[in-house]
C-alpha cells in the first residue's frame, strides 16, 4: 500500500520533471538562438559556434533524457530479481525492486534536468555530471540485484 503511494509520487515527479525539462530546453534553445543572432551581428565567430554547439548539446541531452533513460531503467528493472525466495521476503523483494527502479529513474532524469538547466543559464553543460549520476544509479540497481537474492539466502527462506 505505502509502496504504491511512494511509486505514484515518483511517477508524478517523473512527469513533472519531464515537462519542466522540455520547457527549459526549449527556452534554452531560444536563448542560444538569440545569442547566435547577436553574435552574428557583432561578428563574433567564436561566440556563434559556441552557441551552435550549446544548441546541439541541449538537443542531445533532451533526446537522451526522453529516449535513453526509460530504456536503461526498463532494462535494469528486468534484471532485478524481484521475486527471489518466497513468503514475506518475496513481497519485500518485489517492493524493493520497484522502489529502486523508480528512484533510479527519477534520479537520472533529475541529473539530466540539472544539466539542461545549467546549459540554459549559460553555464557549462554538465553532461559528464549527469552521466556520473546515471552511472551511480545503475550501479546501485546492480548491487540491489545481487543483494536481494543474498538477503533471501541469508534469511533462510526457501
Amino acid at each position, binding site marked *: 500500500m505505502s509502496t504504491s503511494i511512494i511509486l505514484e509520487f515518483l511517477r508524478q515527479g517523473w512527469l513533472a520533471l519531464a515537462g519542466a525539462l*522540455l520547457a*527549459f530546453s*526549449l*527556452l534554452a534553445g531560444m536563448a542560444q538562438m538569440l545569442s547566435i543572432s547577436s553574435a*552574428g*551581428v557583432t561578428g563574433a565567430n567564436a561566440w556563434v559556434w559556441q552557441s551552435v554547439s550549446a544548441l546541439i548539446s541541449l538537443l542531445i541531452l533532451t533526446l537522451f533524457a526522453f529516449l535513453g533513460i526509460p530504456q536503461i531503467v526498463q532494462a535494469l*528493472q528486468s534484471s532485478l530479481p524481484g521475486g527471489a525466495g518466497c513468503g514475506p521476503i518475496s513481497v519485500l523483494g518485489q517492493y524493493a525492486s520497484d522502489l529502486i527502479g523508480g528512484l533510479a529513474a527519477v534520479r537520472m532524469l533529475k541529473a539530466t534536468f540539472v544539466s539542461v538547466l545549467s546549459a540554459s543559464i549559460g553555464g557549462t553543460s554538465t553532461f559528464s555530471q549527469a552521466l556520473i549520476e546515471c552511472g551511480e544509479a545503475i550501479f546501485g540497481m546492480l548491487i540491489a540485484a545481487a543483494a536481494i537474492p543474498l538477503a533471501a539466502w541469508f534469511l533462510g527462506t526457501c
Partner: protein
Amino acid sequence: MFDPIMEQILAIARDAWAFLAGLLIVVALLGGLYYVLQGTAGAAFGGSRMTSMAIIGAVGLVILVLFAFLFLPQIGEMLKDFQPNPPF
C-alpha cells in the same frame, strides 16, 4: 500532485519565451539596421565588398530568425511526442 507547481513553471516559461522572442526581434531589427547602414555606406563609397557583405549578413540574419521561429517550435513538438511515461 505536482500540477499546481507545473502550471506555475509553465506560466513563467511562457512569459520567458515571449520575452526572448521579442528580444530576438529587437536584436534582429537592430542588426538589420546596422547591415543597411553598412550596405549604404559601402555603396556610397564604392565599397562593393562591404555592400555585398552587408547583404549577406542581412540575409543570414533573416534566416536565423526564421530558424528560431519556425524550427524551434517544431523541435518542441517533436520532443513533446517523445516525452516518456514513467518506465516504472
